[in-house]
């Protein structure tokens, strides 16, 4: 596994209003050992050899119209879609998750937090499965502590879609308390079934509201976010 660390090339897409790319760059550099490429949303092609496309957090287009709505229609997204169709890896964090659902790369919708508050706090999550490109460095059912900062993270979809996601094991992370328990307060935004992140059908596209990229340095108070990037580094 050690030599694989050098092979993962990451491309981070920047939209006007993205603001979490530096944290993502740091997380990728620390784990893959490679500097990611940065591509502006107006470009129409991803750098050759891109293994992972990362859509970072922020407020693309000021959240105008709907969060991620305009970014989802940016020129670069056709290339991201083609990359995903070819089985390429895509990671959307927070606003990146919003962009993925608006672009149709993931199903469902992310609505305003049910309590109308922008929630900025530490949050426990259960890692639902540890057999994907994103979670191989975690244990199934592991409870991790990362950060959240969002006002529109309330994941919703019709009953049919939820059944398909749950039945197919496509829920990646759920909100929980420090013991992995799921109760009202542990869910910061009212999302259905405490869903914090989901996979595409082929498990190569992941969208999640929390910020694992902020929990990679002991200085910040935790390193539970490293596992996701270390898993990716092995691809």
């Amino acid at each position: 596994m050690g030599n694989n660390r050098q092979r993962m090339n990451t491309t981070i897409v920047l939209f006007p209003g993205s603001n979490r790319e530096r944290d993502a760059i740091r997380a990728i550099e620390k784990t893959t050992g490679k500097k990611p490429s940065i591509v502006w949303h107006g470009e129409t092609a991803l750098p050759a050899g891109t293994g992972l496309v990362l859509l970072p957090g922020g407020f693309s287009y000021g959240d105008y119209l709907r969060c991620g709505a305009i970014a989802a229609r940016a020129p670069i997204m056709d290339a991201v879609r083609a990359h995903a169709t070819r089985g390429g890896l895509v990671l959307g964090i927070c606003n990146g998750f919003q962009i993925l659902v608006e672009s149709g790369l993931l199903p469902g919708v992310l609505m305003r937090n049910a309590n109308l508050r922008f929630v900025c706090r530490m949050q426990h999550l259960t890692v639902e499965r540890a057999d994907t490109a994103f979670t191989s460095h975690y244990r199934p059912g592991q409870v991790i502590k990362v950060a959240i900062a969002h006002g529109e993270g309330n994941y919703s979809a019709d009953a049919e879609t939820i059944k398909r996601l749950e039945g197919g094991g496509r829920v990646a992370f759920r909100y929980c308390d420090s013991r992995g328990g799921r109760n009202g307060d542990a869910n910061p935004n009212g999302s259905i079934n405490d869903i914090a992140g989901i996979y595409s059908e082929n498990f190569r596209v992941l969208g999640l509201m929390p910020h694992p990229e902020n929990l990679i340095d002991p200085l910040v108070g935790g390193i539970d976010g490293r596992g996701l990037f270390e898993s990716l580094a092995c691809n």
Partner: protein
Amino acid sequence: MKARVIVTLKDGILDPQGKAIEGALKSLGIEGIDSVRQGKIFEMELAADDRTTAAGLLRSACEKLLANQIIENFQVEFL
């Protein structure tokens, strides 16, 4: 040609903003408003001068961008 597009939440979709506005109206002493749901209005100036073309254009604009059809409906009005 002027047109107006109204985008509203589908029935059954949670609207906490609408609820917050309901509460605020009550606390202002404005009684008798039983429910509020918040929507969006887009006012457009179109180059087309026939309604059929304009209607098709606006439908496309709504389906592709202005309304998230998972949770929103849209209506087009010509002014």
